[in-house]
């Protein structure tokens, strides 16, 4: 069964991340927070597409549902600062 940790590893293999957290323990439904410098200057659609691209074929086969929030390092710091 696919674990959240494996999914984190799949993403970070192909996308440089400053921070990543994937949750989900049923093997098919996951929630991810991904912070990457690659997201700078890109809209949300393009940011999510980068994560999907990092997962490649796995997105079609193994993963039924991946809900995600993507942040640039700057936006992430700002968000953390507000906590």
């Amino acid at each position, binding site marked *: 069964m696919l674990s959240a940790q494996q999914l984190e590893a799949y993403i970070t293999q192909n996308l440089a991340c400053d921070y990543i957290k994937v949750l989900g323990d049923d093997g098919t439904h996951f929630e991810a927070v991904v912070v990457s410098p690659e997201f700078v200057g890109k809209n*949300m*659609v393009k940011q*999510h*597409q980068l994560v*999907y691209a990092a997962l490649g074929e796995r*997105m*079609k086969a193994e993963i039924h*549902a*991946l*809900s*995600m*929030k993507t942040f640039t390092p700057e936006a992430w710091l700002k968000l953390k600062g507000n906590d």
Partner: protein
Amino acid sequence: MDTQELIKSQVTGNPVVLYMKGSPKFPQCGFSNLATQILNACNVEYVAIDVLADQNIREGIKGYANWPTIPQLYINGEFVGGSDIMRAMYESGELQTLLNATK
């Protein structure tokens, strides 16, 4: 008409199009359900296309906007996003602004 042309005609022929699993009355997936609720909350008329009813569209829509998941929202022919992005844009008010421009 091939599938990509059919999708193009659907998204350009209607101001707001949602590709989803099931129908707005009977969504077959939590994310599709969320998408319909957001559009209902925005008080907008939209065309819903059930991808479970057409295998060609179900596969073809993933390639159309290079987006591997469903639901998918299109406004004025432009791909807007999936349910995560719809929720974020709804919360920021951006989605309502985009939808108002279609009325």
